[in-house]
């Protein structure tokens, strides 16, 4: 019994998750946690030593565990076509980058399409919520402002952004937002993306059987595709979404499954693209629909977010968050969900089987992401309000089917403050009349803040849920490192109470606590969904440009991490951070260990080229120490590793100076 309890606790550090896992076990429902326990990862695939890019394979060329191979043994370790361990590991790795960049790029494309429909007046339900961001984009893209209407400006912006996907030559426009030195590094290495789609297509071509067989050359194109994500697809998504739905500003909300209310019609919106969720947020407050819900016996309508869609609507509307990636099935296990509405990315197919055990309707809304057995209610971008209304109505109609004896909602929820976009950080530090990163830079230089860390990424059922995020973040805070966070990592931090200003006093070293208290910010700043990692790039660029901390992102006392990464998007994000000059540590598992040479290239060789490099450390505290050591190395290089002796000059000394 004690062993069983311990085994369950090893699955998650989150109380609500443990309660729902117990309920699922009582009711014989299989979840991702059970499946991970029953199916071990394929050791050959996990090391990147399996090539299935042609029908002569799949070829498996595993590296013997814990033994050094001789050159002869290494030479024998090739696929049928002769592909080496290096080529195979690199091909697998860059294909992950291609898929990740494609996901963010396609997200961006959809956002631009909706934006264009709005600008053309073809949909009346969307509007420009942040004119400031529209004007910023006009300046970025060289669009004439004058006395033109917002929609005229928006249409030009939409057309230019649309072209960024299909562009064949030149450079992506947002590249010029990076520090000047960084741009030069990219140009010298020939990795500046020409067009978002082109770089992904070329990468897929190069990994086809019999094409690029030089791992360094493969990684150059991998970098190009990754930069087309971070400084392309992702950045376009973030900027246009801010324009249409509002740039995030500090917002109070709550997180965890305890935000579900038994008396409400509960709708969870899950996925990544915010257009539908925005409309659901608006329509869930419609008095007519609320009355309709009451007519069915409910008290109201409760809209709750899940995964990155949750981050989007929470930052802009304060809509509470049900949980992060590994909690999606568990939200249904509460028995209190009338509908789970999903669009794209990170949606487990296992949801359908869990939903079948309850009255919950799993509603597909996107034709790119259909789930067998789920209801399909397409989101019509020309009539988004009608689409949202229909979905909410379907959920309300399902309320009478709820079985009261199956409902159990864990009473666990935590307050958080989110919405720390680059613009808001700039404003909070400097005020409206001289917004600035100066106070941040000054406090890094004077040592109150030791450095900056971006802790981002997914959950992974192969490691205890949320545990690595929290151990790492707490270690960083204790050492005066300010943490910027996005995605499921941010949600993990919020659930542990790290996203309220009071957390600074409890978890931070004295210097960081003092700064957080003075500015009134939490020590972990929630910057948005995983697509919003581009906000971290811009914030890092602003720190560089403000001065005093070097000329490039690679000079900053900063590091990045994804301790519980799982998706291909995480690899794309990691590569664009490395290529932007950031030391980036991943946990859980590393997908190239089948080739020592290629792995060494990622962990060491990249630094010479980009100033940033990859690292792998599954122990989150040790990983935090690696990040802190890197931060200290950068502080030393900048000459800010020691407090300088303060000399009070008297008149004689001044005269001597002037002389």
């Amino acid at each position, binding site marked *: 019994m004690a062993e069983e309890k311990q085994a369950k606790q090893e699955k998650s550090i989150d109380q609500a998750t443990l309660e729902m896992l117990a309920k699922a076990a009582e009711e014989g429902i299989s979840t991702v946690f059970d499946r991970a326990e029953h199916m071990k990862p394929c050791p050959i695939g996990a090391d990147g030593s399996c090539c299935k890019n042609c029908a002569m394979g799949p070829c498996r060329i595993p590296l013997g565990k814990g033994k050094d191979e001789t050159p002869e043994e290494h030479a024998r370790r090739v696929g049928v076509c002769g592909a080496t361990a290096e080529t195979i590991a690199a091909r697998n790795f860059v294909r992950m980058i291609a898929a990740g960049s494609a996901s963010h790029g396609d997200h961006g494309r959809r956002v631009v399409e909706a934006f264009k429909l709005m600008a053309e007046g073809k949909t009346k339900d969307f509007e420009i919520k942040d004119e400031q961001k529209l004007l910023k984009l006009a300046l970025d893209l060289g669009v004439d402002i004058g006395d033109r209407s917002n929609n005229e400006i928006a249409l030009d912006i939409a057309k230019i952004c649309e072209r960024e996907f299909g562009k064949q030559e030149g450079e992506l426009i947002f590249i010029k937002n990076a520090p000047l030195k960084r741009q030069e590094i990219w140009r010298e290495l020939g990795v500046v993306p020409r067009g978002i789609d082109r770089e992904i297509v070329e990468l897929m071509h190069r990994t086809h059987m019999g094409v690029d067989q030089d791992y360094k050359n493969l990684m150059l194109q991998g970098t190009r595709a990754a930069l087309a994500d971070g400084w392309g697809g992702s950045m376009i998504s973030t900027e246009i979404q801010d324009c249409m739905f509002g740039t995030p*500003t500090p917002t109070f909300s709550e997180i965890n499954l305890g935000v579900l209310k038994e008396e409400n019609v509960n709708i969870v919106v899950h996925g990544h693209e915010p257009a539908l969720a925005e409309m659901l947020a608006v329509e869930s407050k419609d008095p007519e629909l609320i009355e309709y819900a009451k007519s069915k016996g409910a008290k109201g309508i409760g809209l709750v977010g899940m995964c990155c869609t949750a981050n989007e609507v929470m930052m802009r509307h304060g809509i509470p968050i049900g949980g992060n990636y590994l909690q999606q099935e568990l939200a249904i296990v509460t028995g209190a969900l009338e509908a789970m509405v999903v669009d794209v990315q990170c949606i487990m197919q296992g949801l359908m089987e869990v939903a079948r055990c309850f009255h919950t309707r799993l509603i597909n809304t996107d034709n790119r992401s259909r789930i067998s057995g789920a209801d399909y209610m397409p989101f019509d971008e020309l009539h988004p309000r009608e689409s949202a209304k229909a979905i909410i109505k379907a959920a309300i109609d399902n309320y009478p089917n709820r079985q009261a004896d199956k409902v159990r909602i864990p009473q666990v929820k935590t307050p958080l403050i989110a919405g720390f976009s680059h613009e808001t950080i700039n404003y909070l530090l400097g005020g409206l009349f001289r917004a600035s990163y100066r106070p941040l830079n000054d406090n890094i230089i004077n040592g109150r803040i030791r450095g900056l860390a971006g802790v981002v990424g997914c959950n992974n059922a192969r490691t205890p849920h949320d545990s690595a995020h929290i151990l790492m973040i707490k270690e960083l805070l204790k050492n005066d490192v300010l943490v910027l966070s996005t995605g499921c990592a941010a949600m993990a931090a919020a659930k542990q109470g790290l996203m309220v200003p009071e957390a600074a006093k409890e978890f931070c070293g004295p210097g960081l606590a003092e700064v957080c208290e003075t500015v009134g910010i939490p020590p972990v700043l929630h910057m948005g969904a995983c697509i919003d990692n581009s906000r971290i790039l811009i914030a890092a660029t602003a720190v560089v440009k*403000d001065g005093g901390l070097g000329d490039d992102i690679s000079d900053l006392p900063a590091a990045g991490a994804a301790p519980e990464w799982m998706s291909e998007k995480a690899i794309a994000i990691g590569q664009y951070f490395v290529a932007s000059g950031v030391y980036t540590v991943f946990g859980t598992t590393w997908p190239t260990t089948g080739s020592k040479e290629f792995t060494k290239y990622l962990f060491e060789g990249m630094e010479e080229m980009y100033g940033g490099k990859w690292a792998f450390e599954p122990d989150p505290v040790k990983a935090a120490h690696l990040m802190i050591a890197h931060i200290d190395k950068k502080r030393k290089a900048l000459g800010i590793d020691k407090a300088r002796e303060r000399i009070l000059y008297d008149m004689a000394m001044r005269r001597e100076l002037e002389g």
Partner: protein
Amino acid sequence: MEKKATSKTAATGSADPAEKFVKKQAPGRGTVEILAESYEPGEPEGEEAGRWRQKLGDRNEKIKYLKSGERYWYSDDWFGSEKRKNPA
């Protein structure tokens, strides 16, 4: 000390809250008019707390903010790592 806040905002029609002045006694100079505080009184509360973007009024004010607040990208009037007072 006498402290009386006046605002030129209404008189000039400008929406710039920086143009708020107070009269104070200065040693040896009598009453002088100086710039008043620019922060908002009280503690923000309710749904609007934290929504600072709405403070920016018309389009000109927004562009002006971009050139000051986001000066690293949209103005020449700044100094930093890429525009040094004393070149490195």
